[in-house]
């Protein structure tokens, strides 16, 4: 029984961490950032490099990697993405091209495989099975990210401006909000969170230029099922999908889990196209 609990917890943190950066950019700017996977990969590669070549501690390397990913994101926003805000689909194509360019650049520069780095903390046993403390640490990080996002959006000046622009961009601009600077910060934040995710998972998985791919389609699923709200969306849909995927994986295998996620997504698209965000709005309107 603890196995099931652990599996759901691990899937939940995986989904929350891999989606939050994507969801913030989508929720605030209504852009799907296809370069998300490459930011995740950058975070992981930088972490591995800092730990294995510069001999840094993992816990110093992880935030540094996130900052570097945020800087790359900010640079791309200023040079390219800013010009495409009025062309949503072209924006998707541009970020997709950026994704391939970053992945191929890393591939040409470093080759496919990277040295592994040791997993911090040890493991513990419950019954006969061994579990990692690091997974619990990741769950803590996921919870921390969600709380931080909530605090940022609810209690800061930046959060207030962002929520205003989400409701009505023109009105917010008319009242003096600098949306250009706000979008820059939002994109950098999203990219930084993606980098953080990659950095956190670098000790758990083999790092390669294609590291981000395994996060990408699950992040998309969470985004579809979650909807546009950058907090409600990832939280509720990670709980739901995490339980389904974790449960089915625990019962059968990960193929069953993937198919379960696909079916849930299809049902959501058909019944609740706005995802959990839509459900939340309906429930709030009823009150």
């Amino acid at each position: 029984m603890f196995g099931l609990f652990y599996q759901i917890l691990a899937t939940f943190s995986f989904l929350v961490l891999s989606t939050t950066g994507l969801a913030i950019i989508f929720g605030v700017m209504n852009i799907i950032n296809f370069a998300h996977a490459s930011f995740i990969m950058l975070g992981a590669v930088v972490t591995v490099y800092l730990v294995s070549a510069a001999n840094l501690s993992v816990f110093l390397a992880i935030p540094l990697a996130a900052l570097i990913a945020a800087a790359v994101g900010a640079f791309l926003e200023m040079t390219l993405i800013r010009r495409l805000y009025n062309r949503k689909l072209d924006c998707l194509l541009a970020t997709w091209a950026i994704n391939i360019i970053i992945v191929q650049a890393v591939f040409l520069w470093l080759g496919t495989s990277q040295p592994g780095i040791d997993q911090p903390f040890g493991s513990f046993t419950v019954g006969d099975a061994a579990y990692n403390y690091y997974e619990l640490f990741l769950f803590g990080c996921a919870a921390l990210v969600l709380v931080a996002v909530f605090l940022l959006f609810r209690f800061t000046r930046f959060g207030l401006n962002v929520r205003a622009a989400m409701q009505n961009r023109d009105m917010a601009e008319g009242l003096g909000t600098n949306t250009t600077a706000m979008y820059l910060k939002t994109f950098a934040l999203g990219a930084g969170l993606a980098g953080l995710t990659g950095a956190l998972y670098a000790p758990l998985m083999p790092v390669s230029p294609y590291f981000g791919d395994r996060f990408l389609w699950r992040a998309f699923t969470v985004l579809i099922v979650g909807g546009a709200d950058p907090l409600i969306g990832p939280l509720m849909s990670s709980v739901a999908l995490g339980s389904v995927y974790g449960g089915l994986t625990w019962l059968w295998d990960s193929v069953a889990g993937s198919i379960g996620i696909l079916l849930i997504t299809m049902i959501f698209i058909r019944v609740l196209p706005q995802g959990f965000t839509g459900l939340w709005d309906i429930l709030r309107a009823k009150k």
Partner: protein
Amino acid sequence: MRSKFFDFITALNGPQTVGSSPLYWRSFAIVCALLLLYPIIGEDYAVSNNGFLMVWVFLGLSVCILWGYTGIFSFGQTAFFGLAGYVYGVVSINIPPEYSMLAAVCGIALIMLLSAIVGYVIFYGGISSLYIAIFTLMLTLLAETLLSRTSGPQFRIGSALLGGSNGMVGIPPLQIGSGDFAIVFVDKPFFWLVAALLILVFLGLRFLLNSNWGYLMVATREDPLRTQLFGYDIRRIQLMTYIIAGGIAALGGVLFASWNNFIAPSSMGMTAATLPIIWVAAGGRASIQAVTISTFTLQWINQQLAYGGGEYSLMFFAILLLCTVMLFPQGIVTTIEMALEEYLERRRVARLEKSPLLGGRL
């Protein structure tokens, strides 16, 4: 007789496609004739290879009518392309070679059914176009993941082994007739088959796009809400277009599997899903002619880059996509076409100005 012929041509002309002048149709006829004559003079290998490059055009056209004409951005046509190859493989391995056309029909029909199901979920759910992009990409990657796990003898359908990530081997080529009278579509016959099908599909699409249905597709792209307010069910328009596009992609997939004798899950991977988007974006999404030209050209370039190692091929395509989006949002071929049209128009006006009838008063 003559007027019937002109009626036929008129039905193929319209604002939705490039080219309607007699000059255009004369050049079109010459290109078709050259295509059909080419295998007689060409070498076997080159003919076969060029036939293979044309197979991709079906995939490009499929993305083009969805994205360029109806405004549905789909990454999933690659999945239909690959799955059609799988269906053709499974069926054709299990039946005698003289019935392989039946396997092709099976592949296309099943994929059209599948696109009907997927399309129903997408369009009748009413999700936004950005969601359609990520949902179809998700389906493609999932199809790849699931098929990669089918290695081992337990994954067989009849005598066809699915083969996991190595793919399914031993797929027979298309064939008509049996025994001594059989035409097996390899090398030159394959080229003729693909060229004939391509001309048919191209003219068929020109007919469709310039019919009332084509106007509805473009109206759905330009303003879905307004089209709906005029009393059209845009969900039905989108769904039907999706099924047609699925059929065209499936036709390409069947031809691909029959040429290659082999199909693998990597035909549905991330890279495979990206390339059609790049052909269409770089060519010019709102023109089937631009997409036909750009698909063939870019696949040829892809092949040349692959001979030189292939590491830079994807990088080249990504940079091409980025440049297209930033500099030529309408597509490179379309930009050239427009420049050419402007040049011809200017020359026509210049000639008119010189003509004694007008006396330079234009």
